[in-house]
């Protein structure tokens, strides 16, 4: 401490001796920087903060070691060798009895079903191809090193959906796999993927409509948004499932999956509309005037000037909606679809696997978390990238 104050005095003297206008810029006092400085600032800045730090460390000590013991050290990772006198059998919960921890062979044994649902086993390569194309295109669209974004986007949004549908459903030379057989992670991905891709543009249109000067368009959008937001998703799913057939002419069958997709997308779009409207309202009127004064038409103005800025402002809210949409897809279990969570639950109710519910839920939580966290991180990256305030590109 003494050193530092001496240091400071020396600096002051230095400044005092200089002529005005010639004073040099000096580094900040050393106590403020480095690891010790960080600890002092963030963990022990006051005695309340210090107590909270200690308490938090204690709680972590209570939670983490037992969890690690259960999940890693005492867990069963592979099927143990057959004991003498035991008949050969498929893996089951009994194989895990020897260890106190988690029974991960449940996840291992059931993984194909968790991923593909009841999709015909011999045809699962088709799903793999769709997964592969999806992963590669998403990487291509998001990575900054890959050029030709326009072509990629056209492929991804126009060609890929048709290709994916053909591969997944079949027809034209491929064996048809009915949608009621679809399930597991694949179904969750389809539901949230289509929900995300369609809810954003639909939400943007609803938001623009709500701000429209045309009374009919305005009213329609307000009614639509407020109706959907006022009703729980479960209700919408029930309605899509039970009520929609009443409105259709007799004989017209509407696929359950399609009905659910419609319900999820419309639900997400209504919320998206309000998030986008928030972004639109944050833009100063001058941006509209600047665009109009140069003779841009309404759609040009929206596409080139207003929406790029409004959507950037709305990124946190938009991604928030994407994440909650992904998680809301678990509600389709209620109308009898076996999405990822539901199929894992069903798996742990199998008589061979009774007692593996916790393993199932932890595994599910981990998978959902990875996907949602990835979205959240990407959105933060995007926000930084699109910030044009004070730095060079």
């Amino acid at each position, binding site marked *: 401490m003494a050193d530092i104050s001496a240091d400071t005095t020396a600096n002051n003297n230095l400044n005092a001796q200089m002529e005005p206008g010639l004073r040099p810029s000096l580094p900040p006092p050393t106590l403020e920087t480095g690891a010790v400085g960080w600890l002092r600032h963030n963990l022990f800045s006051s005695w309340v903060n210090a107590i909270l730090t200690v308490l938090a460390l204690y709680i972590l000590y209570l939670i983490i070691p037992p969890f690690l013991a259960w999940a890693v050290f005492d867990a069963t990772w592979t099927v143990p060798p057959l004991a003498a006198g035991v008949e050969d059998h498929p893996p089951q919960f009994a194989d895990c009895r020897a260890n106190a921890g988690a029974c991960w062979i449940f996840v291992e044994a059931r993984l194909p079903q968790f991923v593909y649902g009841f999709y015909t086993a011999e045809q699962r390569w088709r799903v793999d191809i769709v997964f592969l194309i999806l992963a590669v295109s998403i990487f291509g669209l998001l990575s900054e090193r890959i050029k030709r974004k326009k072509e990629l986007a056209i492929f991804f949004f126009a060609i890929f959906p048709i290709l994916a549908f053909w591969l997944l459903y079949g027809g034209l030379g491929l064996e048809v796999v009915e949608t009621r057989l679809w399930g597991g992670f694949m179904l969750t991905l389809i539901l949230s993927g289509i929900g995300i891709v369609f809810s954003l543009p639909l939400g943007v249109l609803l938001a623009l409509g709500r701000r429209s000067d045309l009374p009919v368009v305005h009213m329609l959008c307000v009614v639509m948004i407020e109706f959907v937001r006022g009703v729980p998703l479960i209700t919408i799913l029930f309605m899509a499932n039970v009520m929609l057939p009443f409105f259709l002419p007799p004989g017209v069958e509407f696929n359950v999956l399609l009905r659910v997709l419609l319900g999820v997308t419309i639900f997400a779009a209504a919320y998206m509309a309000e998030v986008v409207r928030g972004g639109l309202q944050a833009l*100063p009127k*001058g*941006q509209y*005037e*600047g*665009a*109009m*004064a*140069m*003779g*841009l*038409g309404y759609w*040009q103005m929206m596409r*080139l*000037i207003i929406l*790029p*800025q409004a959507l*950037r402002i709305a990124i946190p809210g938009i991604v928030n909606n994407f994440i909650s949409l992904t998680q809301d897809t678990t509600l389709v279990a209620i109308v009898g679809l076996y999405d990822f969570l539901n199929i894992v639950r069903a798996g742990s109710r199998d008589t061979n696997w009774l007692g593996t519910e916790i393993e199932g839920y932890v595994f599910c939580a981990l998978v959902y978390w990875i996907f949602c966290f990835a979205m959240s991180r990407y959105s933060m990256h995007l926000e930084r990238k*699109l910030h*044009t*305030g*004070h*730095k*060079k*590109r």
Partner: protein
Amino acid sequence: MAQALNQGAAQAIPAASDQPMIQLSAVNKWYGQFHVLKDIDLTVYTGERIVVCGPSGSGKSTMIRCINRLEEHQKGKIVVDGVELTHDLKKIEQVRREVGMVFQHFNLFPHLTVLENLTLAPIWVRKMPKKDAEEVAMTYLKRVKIPEQASKYPGQLSGGQQQRVAIARSLCMNPKVMLFDEPTSALDPEMIKEVLDVMIGLAETGMTMICVTHEMGFARTVANRVIFMDRGEIIEQNDPEEFFKNPKSERTKLFLSQILHH
């Protein structure tokens, strides 16, 4: 008439013609119950440079914003370059293509670079090829003396630089008229001159200009007519020398004494 009015202007600045470019006849506008513009009659000739001044709330900004229909007038007639402004969107956009506007707060597009700000309208509205648009944009950036800032974003420039970019952006559309709505009011004092210099340079090219401003030095140098507005009416108009030396109405005298003695 235009010739006679031009005596006070600098030598280099060309005289106005007698071709009317903008005609406002008996224009009225209300904001709710509030009568902002009362029977405005104004004819602006091609090549004429008009400075509009008056106390705040006098309707001067509203008047020039009516000329490119950022505000709608409720009574009377506005004709710009032979096109009457009505509810017809096609005609409104036709007028806006020919009328450039510079705003108090610049209204540059912060998500686009300076160059993209300049080329946007030529590309999308005039359907100009990108390369040509960039060439034109660089010409005008040189004219406002900041070609080196082309790849920066507006948020990285000073206020004066931003306003010069805004002027260049309007010029890229090759407009027949330029409207200025208090272009220097939001600037720090040391940046006002660089913007006024650009505007004087523009006047020397013979551009038709209507400028709402309180920069009376600029009015003296450039304008061939100064208009004084108060409470929604045009109170007085004259060539700058007469206007400043012998203001006729009491309100003009009061206004001038207030702004010139500060």
